[in-house]
């Protein structure tokens, strides 16, 4: 048992500041536990969003000592407790209150990605056959828990506020999940270039670093999508080759 000081962001909209709370911590605790203890003992109206407390729902995203993380998966033992631990809301989205941000924009951005469209069932029983290795490629992206930490850390959104022009890494992962789905026949490549702003990504890989699900966002999702865009729009030879290939 030890007393640890937390600096939590308190406030609404544009008005806010850090407030210090000291609470007792014990072995194995995560940041969300401490925040809950503070809520119960000292600040019952402290706004914090959470659900599963097991790293599966992606609700409790925040910036802990400046690093975008899930509060429920950040053990206190991984932090320097000699100094106050700062917890503040994500920066890429408008503040609702305290640690809670308005992430509604992400839901709108997702709506713009064309939905899954399967090819016709081709097995005799009216379903499909797929090989495990083909399935695994898209499964990596389907691990996404929509915590939006990758959106938070992406400088295009965080610093340049290009929310109107760029759907961000999380939604590119979504697009990749559909594009690489073995059954999908939709074409999202023109949208990726023209509507979703994939060109804004300049591969700094910050998103990959913060992903709590360890999805290789840049290398496995964004770069292959960028390559498809290049193939489709900028490389006549490849385009020709693809036309012939698809006719086989």
């Amino acid at each position, binding site marked *: 048992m030890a007393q640890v000081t937390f600096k939590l962001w308190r406030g609404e909209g544009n008005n806010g500041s850090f407030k210090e709370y000291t609470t007792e911590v014990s072995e194995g605790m995560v940041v969300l*536990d401490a925040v809950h203890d503070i809520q119960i003992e000292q600040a*019952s109206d402290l706004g914090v*969003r*959470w*659900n*599963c407390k097991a*790293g599966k729902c992606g609700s409790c995203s925040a910036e802990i000592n400046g690093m975008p993380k899930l509060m429920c998966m950040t053990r206190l033992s991984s932090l320097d407790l000699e100094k106050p631990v700062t917890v503040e809301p994500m920066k890429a989205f408008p503040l609702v209150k305290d640690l809670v941000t308005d992430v509604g924009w992400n839901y709108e951005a997702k709506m713009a990605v064309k939905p899954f469209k399967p090819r016709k069932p081709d097995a005799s029983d009216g379903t499909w056959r797929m090989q*495990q290795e083909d399935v695994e490629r898209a499964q990596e992206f*389907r691990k996404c828990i*929509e915590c939006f930490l990758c959106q938070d850390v992406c400088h295009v959104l965080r610093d340049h506020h290009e929310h109107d022009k760029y759907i961000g890494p999380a939604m590119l992962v979504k697009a990749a999940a559909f594009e690489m789905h073995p059954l999908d026949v939709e074409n999202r490549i023109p949208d990726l270039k023209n509507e979703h702003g994939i060109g804004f990504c300049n591969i700094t890989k910050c998103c990959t670093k913060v992903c709590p699900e360890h999805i290789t966002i840049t290398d496995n999702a964004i770069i292959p999508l960028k390559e498809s865009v290049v193939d489709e729009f900028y490389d006549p030879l490849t385009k020709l080759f693809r036309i012939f290939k698809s006719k086989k």
Partner: protein
Amino acid sequence: MSDRCTTHEYDVLIIGAGGAGLRAAIEAASMGDSVGVVCKSLLGKAHTVMAEGGMAASMGNVDDRDNWKVHFADTMRGGQYLNNCKMAEHHAKEAASCVHELESWGALFDRTKEGKILQRNFGGHKYPRLAHVGDRTGLEMIRTLQDHGIHHGIDFHMEVTVTNLLIDGNKVVGAFAYEREKGRFLLFKAKAIVIATGGYGRAFKITSNSWEYTGDGQTLAYDAGADLLDMEFVQFHPTGMVWPPSVRGILVTEGVRGEGGILTNSEGKRFMFEDVPPLYRSSTADNEEEGWRYVTGDKEANRPPELLTRDHVARKIVKEVKAGRGSEHGGAYLDIAWIEEKIKDSETHIKKKLPSMYHQFKELAGVDITKEKMEVGPTTHYAMGGIRVDSETQMTTVEGLFACGECAAGLHGANRLGGNSLSDLLVFGKRAGAHAAKFAAAIDTFSAIDSKEVDTLVTQALAPVDRTEGENPYKIQQDLQETMQDLAGISRSEAGLNEAIEHIHAYAKRAENAHAPGNREYNPGWHTALDLHNLLTVSEAMCLSAEQRTESRGGHFREEYPEKSKEGSTYNTVVRKAQDGSMEVERVPVVPQTDEMKQIIEANE
């Protein structure tokens, strides 16, 4: 109408956006109805994401001896024959098509060598039956339904909580709700309402359930005059994490045991081989070698005792702990690392089959499950009991009010088999959505709503923030959770239940004086205060029903009556609001099986 809230009108209003709610919404919307969905959290965060192991459907992809009849018999046996047999039949027959439908909407299940949907072993299922995606099947399901559903013209009201249903006679006409962000009120006028709010695990201290699971739907239905059924049956999942304290209760999937994980005590003994229940003796392995052969797909082998039903495994772990043979922190050891004796490169195998378990133990407990044993113990996991519904339409005893998923009762009887929940959500979500849409289509206009009643609801809802002093709502919740854990949990007695009810009445008094400082904007103290009524209602219903059942069966264990009674197999327990506002309980006869059902059950013993 009251100017203190915004009004919305929908043919069908769905309360809850987990698997059942989303499936119901998609069904109702595809039938042309206008549909609104209210979710307590953000879309896609509902408790369905926590489901790990898979969804049960007798597709027979791994063992072609499987069919709906075997699934039906397994479900009935698992539920100790208190299930609504008609619901169990619908479920067993329709689960496979629901899984295929989910695949057609984009779900990407793990595959067999032939490229079909892979199925895994789970407790109480005779054959490998669970379609799965590693150990994150629930996430796959909710995301598929979410991504499909958002393109159906459905309105989603995120971070909105319904606190009251509006009733005209015996018919539901609307719902009253608040939104978290600004603390504003919403009034929904609806021709039909589907409740899909999940369970009530938060009534207990140790639980795998999230903050949302406060029995909202059950209480809404009860307050509206609907019957609750089988409320004594709560599933204590045998394997929750026990150490460190802050993660106590977080689920460890049954998939660990399905992949060959074994339970041992402090003496290193595999204690599950003892006390195998008579109902399962002939189908359970009596030696370690046979158990291993079963999990690796030998069709001739019987299942290892670790894969007996959850109620039995949970009680066995408690027995070991009580006998002083528990693990270091008061649980049992769950060991998957041992399979290195059996297979090459077991580390990669475990990480691939159980990725989130590997992740969870590594990050939260500092345990590498490919090399070390886990410590596990029972955790409140699932409510078999809930809102009583019609087995064909999912309509409650209130007209126009439907329920599906965990908040509804009937399918699982006294104990739910793992994997039968996700399929339950799809099968009965679809049915509830279809019947609610049909019901709504027969109604021309929205009913008028009494604005005075709405004003009263607004005043009631604001009371905890309007009070200038009073009690901390979190403390009342914690006290209730302690009481239920100690007196109405895995082991119950008449004296304990009576004591619990006395406490609940005292907490209800305290709740009337709960005070949430601060304003209405995103104020969790206020939300906790409003949830108390629901937690207290379901807790009392659990205790009264548990008192009524003077035997031990499935998820319900009575110290004075440790065995099943003959009479106990003949009735279900019903709780409803009496004329005077008190809670009344009665026994109703179990839904009788048809001759065909009896034959199926006999043939599959």
